[in-house]
């Protein structure tokens, strides 16, 4: 059933009233040079039954397997209570809470989320979420560009050991906005950013340095030295971090002498199932003094006319419904449901629980690394320390190895040769707290058999 209730007669009557011939005429205002393609390549819709059949078939492809893939999305235990509570009608159907008097529950939850996220990141301010980790980084870069000296074209240093998808999304979103994205290579021996490599950019006026923690290879960056270098050269420091790792490692707000200026990343590890890639959510934190350049919803706590505590959307003059074309935020719907689940997840675990999860992840990944090193032909590519994933070199083509493991219902890792051809036949392999010693042993045994 179509969701558009107008009949052809209705449409014709409306077009006639405003004096145009066809619906396409409404879009004449768009310059022809901006029209890139028609929509004929988009297939026509599927029936509900066809769609259901397709999705069930796809779900079978990645469900129920033993997963050692990380690479930006991580399998963690989610307490049953999280989605039981998040699925309550009051949360499940809540939309952008413009009407504070009717949305106190949702607003309070978002306020609690912001408080938890700011605390986890060691930052002063958090917004109420963005779409995902990659778009949160793009927003962080746009924010840095707004904060920079407007006389010069902004230049952002983007390390190659940042998630390749994040780099692609960054290119898509900010690549056309008169911002230079400069590639910073990683040290081929350590997989990390070396502070020495930054000196090549010392003469160039930079806007921001992006620092991943851990980096895409799972390695731990020297965040203090890197952020200090940034601040000594009047460059903003943008942290892209795994939120679980921040329960164990130094949070961005404490990096170096001044702390990172903006911290962002993917919220999925905090209570969101892998679910074939989404929906996830992005988080974004910053210094309080940057509040007016921050995108997304921000919830504040206040008092009503009777002095009672209440929660409201605040700093809305940044947003598109007030500031129109000059808004610093063009995102009005945050990932409310995902954030609801994350907030419940974080409150059930607490800071100590999150730290335990992080420690268990690191413990399992260390055990995994040890078991893999005992296999003839497998070598770690970069030295420790790592958080919960690492890169290993295989004596055989990675695609062949992964296919054999898949037959044993094991998702054995993420092949790096597409995005990092220089690394050759390597796998990025991850173990979170969900992997038992028996399962890690099973992977090691299966790999040994596959390679023999």
């Amino acid at each position, binding site marked *: 059933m179509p969701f558009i209730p107008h009949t052809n007669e209705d449409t014709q009557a409306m077009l006639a009233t405003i004096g145009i011939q066809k619906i396409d005429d409404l879009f004449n205002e768009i310059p022809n040079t901006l029209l890139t393609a028609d929509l004929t390549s988009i297939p026509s819709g599927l029936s509900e039954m066809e769609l259901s059949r397709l999705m069930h078939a796809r779900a079978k492809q990645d469900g129920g397997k033993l997963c050692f893939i990380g690479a930006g999305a991580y399998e963690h235990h989610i307490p049953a209570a999280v989605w039981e509570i998040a699925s309550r009608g009051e949360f499940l159907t809540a939309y952008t809470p413009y009407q504070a008097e009717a949305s106190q529950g949702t607003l309070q939850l978002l306020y609690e989320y912001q408080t938890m996220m700011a605390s986890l990141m060691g930052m002063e301010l958090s917004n109420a979420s963005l779409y995902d980790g990659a778009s949160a980084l793009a927003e962080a870069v746009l924010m840095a560009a707004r904060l920079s000296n407007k006389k010069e074209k902004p230049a952002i240093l983007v390390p190659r050991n940042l998630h390749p998808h994040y780099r692609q999304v960054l290119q898509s979103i900010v690549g056309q906005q008169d911002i230079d994205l400069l590639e910073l290579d990683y040290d081929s021996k350590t997989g990390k950013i070396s502070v020495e490599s930054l000196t090549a950019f010392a003469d160039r006026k930079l806007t921001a340095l992006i620092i991943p923690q851990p980096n895409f290879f799972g390695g731990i960056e020297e965040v203090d030295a890197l952020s200090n270098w940034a601040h000594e050269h009047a460059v903003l420091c943008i942290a892209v971090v795994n939120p679980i790792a921040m329960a164990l490692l130094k949070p961005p707000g404490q990096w170096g002498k001044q702390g990172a200026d903006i911290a962002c990343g993917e919220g999925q590890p905090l209570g969101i199932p892998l679910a074939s890639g989404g929906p996830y959510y992005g988080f974004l934190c910053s210094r309080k003094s940057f509040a007016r350049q921050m995108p997304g919803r921000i919830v504040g706590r206040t008092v009503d006319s009777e002095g009672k505590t209440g929660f409201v959307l605040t700093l809305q*003059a940044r947003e598109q419904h007030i500031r129109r074309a000059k808004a610093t935020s063009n995102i009005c719907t945050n990932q409310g449901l995902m954030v609801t689940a994350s907030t419940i997840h974080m409150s059930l675990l607490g800071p100590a629980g999150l730290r335990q999860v992080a420690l268990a992840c690191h413990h399992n990944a260390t055990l995994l690394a040890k078991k893999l090193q005992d296999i003839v032909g497998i070598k770690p590519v970069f030295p420790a320390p790592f958080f919960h994933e690492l890169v290993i070199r295989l004596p055989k083509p990675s695609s062949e190895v992964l296919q054999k493991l898949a037959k044993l219902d094991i998702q054995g890792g993420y092949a790096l040769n597409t995005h990092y051809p220089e690394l050759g036949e390597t796998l990025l392999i991850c173990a979170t707290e969900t992997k038992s010693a028996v399962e890690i042993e099973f992977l090691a045994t299966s790999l040994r058999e596959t390679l023999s």
Partner: protein
Amino acid sequence: MSNVPKKLRYTASHEWVRQDEDLFTVGITDHAQCMLGDLVYAELPELETSFDNGQECAVLESVKAAADVYSPISGEIVEINEAVIENPQLINEDPYGKGWLFRIRPFDPAGAQLLSADQYSKQLASEAH
């Protein structure tokens, strides 16, 4: 009826201008502050930056809106009012005095195309209808 001092000159976009020798002091009019309501934030231009006549050079934010302030003449910013950054309410309380925003050194002081108080008052009267 809002206050439109006779000794000042005005723009159609609700800035006032006071000429002191070769410097122009700029703020927003009583009418503008009244329309915006309680101001909570002022973003003023950086010193030594140049603006064209009519170019956006500052942003004011109230509890209900954000508004751009336009340069009334081409020139270079030589001074900004730090006090309104600290306390934007000064613009509401004293728009023609303590609530001034910035001083600009015009490239061509004689080239200013500004409204007299009478002309600006007439504009306000016509906008009211």
